[in-house]
């Protein structure tokens, strides 16, 4: 990972608008970040902070017309994905950019064999015949450490465990050797031991292939262990971003600090209790003025509810969007 190389993905000023029964609001507001080859970028935040929506926007899978990207750009290898129509976008999906979803139990089609489902991207994008695709599928399944892969291709999803299903999903995502993979909470539904295995497979494959990886998670432990860069989102905006060591070492935004204070540590002092962040995150339609975090922020002052703080680089690579402590 060299800084001089142009980034694989550059999201700039991405804004999505939600329209429900005549009301409109920005679900994502001015989201910007970059992903380089072989880099693992983690996006963290509470439910509803816009993590998954960012992923869906990159994939061109926003639930239109209720949610639309209304501003900004998503540049992938020189192309602004937001300017593509569905058919042009389809050529990218599953081929150069792939995505793994949160819920492995419902992500596989119950009436098709695992082999068929892994083969599909190869058939649509690489023009492989069924036989060749199946052969490749067996290799892919073996790569994500499913034993007896050849035989298991003929099985149906209901004969697979959750962990095996998620491996099958990863194998599908890897089928066309994508340059970018988005994993939306890929291990939330799995056992802790399986979680570690899946994440290790993902990280090793990303590094080995020079594939960019966007890992969406709400677990800071996962971020610390697997990611190179972290993006902290709150209420549809990026509030802090930077290299993992830097952000974890010197968290600047009160929200990031709050998140870290509510993670239990094994070596931590038993006396120091976990500190939850007070209050509830706001909904899309009732976002507070100024900095959306101000009602829950211990450092908030006048300016915070008057003006929205921009995301600014205050140390090399380390960005924050906060008025406090300038």
């Amino acid at each position, binding site marked *: 990972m060299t800084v001089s190389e142009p980034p694989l993905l550059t999201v700039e000023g991405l804004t999505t608008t939600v329209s429900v029964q005549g009301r409109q609001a920005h679900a994502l507001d001015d989201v910007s970040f970059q992903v380089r080859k072989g880099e693992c970028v983690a996006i963290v935040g509470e439910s509803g902070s816009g993590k998954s929506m960012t992923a869906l926007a990159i994939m061109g899978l926003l639930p239109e017309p209720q949610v639309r990207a209304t501003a900004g750009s998503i540049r992938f290898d020189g192309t602004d994905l937001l300017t593509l129509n569905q058919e042009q976008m389809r050529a990218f999906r599953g081929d150069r950019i792939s*995505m793994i979803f949160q819920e492995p139990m419902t992500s596989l089609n119950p009436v098709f*064999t695992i082999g068929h489902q892994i083969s599909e991207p190869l058939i649509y994008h690489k023009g492989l015949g069924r036989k060749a695709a199946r052969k490749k599928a067996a290799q892919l399944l073996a790569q994500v450490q499913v034993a007896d892969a050849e035989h298991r291709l003929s099985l149906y999803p209901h004969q697979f465990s959750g962990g095996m299903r998620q491996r099958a999903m990863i194998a599908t995502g890897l089928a066309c050797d994508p340059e970018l993979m988005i994993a939306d909470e890929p291990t939330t539904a799995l056992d802790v031991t399986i979680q570690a295995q899946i994440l290790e497979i993902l990280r090793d494959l990303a590094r080995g292939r020079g594939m960019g990886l966007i890992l969406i998670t709400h677990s800071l432990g996962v971020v610390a262990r697997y990611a190179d860069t972290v993006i902290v989102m709150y209420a549809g905006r990026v509030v802090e971003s930077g290299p993992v060591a830097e952000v974890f070492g010197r968290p600047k935004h009160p929200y990031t600090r709050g998140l870290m204070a509510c993670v239990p540590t094994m070596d931590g002092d038993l006396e120091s209790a976990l500190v939850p962040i007070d209050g509830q995150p706001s909904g899309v339609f009732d976002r507070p003025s100024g900095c959306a975090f101000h009602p829950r922020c211990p450092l908030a002052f006048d300016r915070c509810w008057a003006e929205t703080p921009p995301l600014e680089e205050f140390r090399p690579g380390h960005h924050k969007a906060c008025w406090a402590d300038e």
Partner: protein
Amino acid sequence: MLRFIAHRSLQSIIVLFLVTVIVFALMRILPGDPVAIIAGTGVEGLTAEEEARLRARFGLDQPLPMQYLDWIRNVLVGDWGISTRTGVPVWTELAHRAPITAQLALTAWLIAVLVGVTTGVAAAIYRRTPIDSFSTAFAMFGISMPDFWLGILLILVFSVWMGLLPSVGYVSPATDLLLNLKHLLLPALALGLSEAAVFMRQTRSGMLEVLGQDFIRVARAKGTPERVIIWHHTLKNASLPIVTIMGLRFGRLIGGTVVIETIFGLPGLGRLAVQSIVMRDYLALQGVVLLVALFVVVINLITDIIYAALDPRIRLA
């Protein structure tokens, strides 16, 4: 799979047995018997001895359980008895008429499936657009309109006003296939369109449910062409309840032929059933009902087998 089929076949035999008991009993509950009808329609009234002789000939002097057992025993060896109305073996009569009803029912069913599934899929894809509203309105119309009324309307429009298609009668496909289809089109439409409405509603709701599933979003994320997503990924999942409904409605569709064949003057099983009831032609009606029941049971068996073929969770359970 073989065990599954064997199990379902056994159930089917029980169903058929119950059907024979019910139709036998229902016919006997009706007032009058074939001999009384014959005696009533004859030019000269029959004497009491002649009536008794006729009853003996048809086996009607036997106690009811004996009559039933006789009938079943004969049917099992292929003797479906003699029609008291025509004097022709019931089996010959059935063999003549069954193909007509079968052709009518299958054509109607094909229309129902084609129209119902395509409009249902279209309504689901173009949800909340004029296409959806139109299809839903069509379905409401189809479900609300009785077959016979639709049949009369079709005759009025296509035969009387436009003079495009014949209104009554039947031509064997062996004689003239085109003319045969012309005769069948209107009755098949009358019968099929209301079924199409039922299939359309089932298809629409099934498709909408499946389109909202996670694995459809995954299919899109794989770059699956939209055409494959609709007709392959979604319809195959949605087809399980559709196929069930298709099997179940087939019985109703055959029931509908009774009225439709009468309106359009088609000499099928439905007409035979009506004539047999009027003439208290016990054996003929029992034959019709048993044959139709057999047909429906086989269709349902096929439905179950298709169902298992479509859904691996059933097949391997």
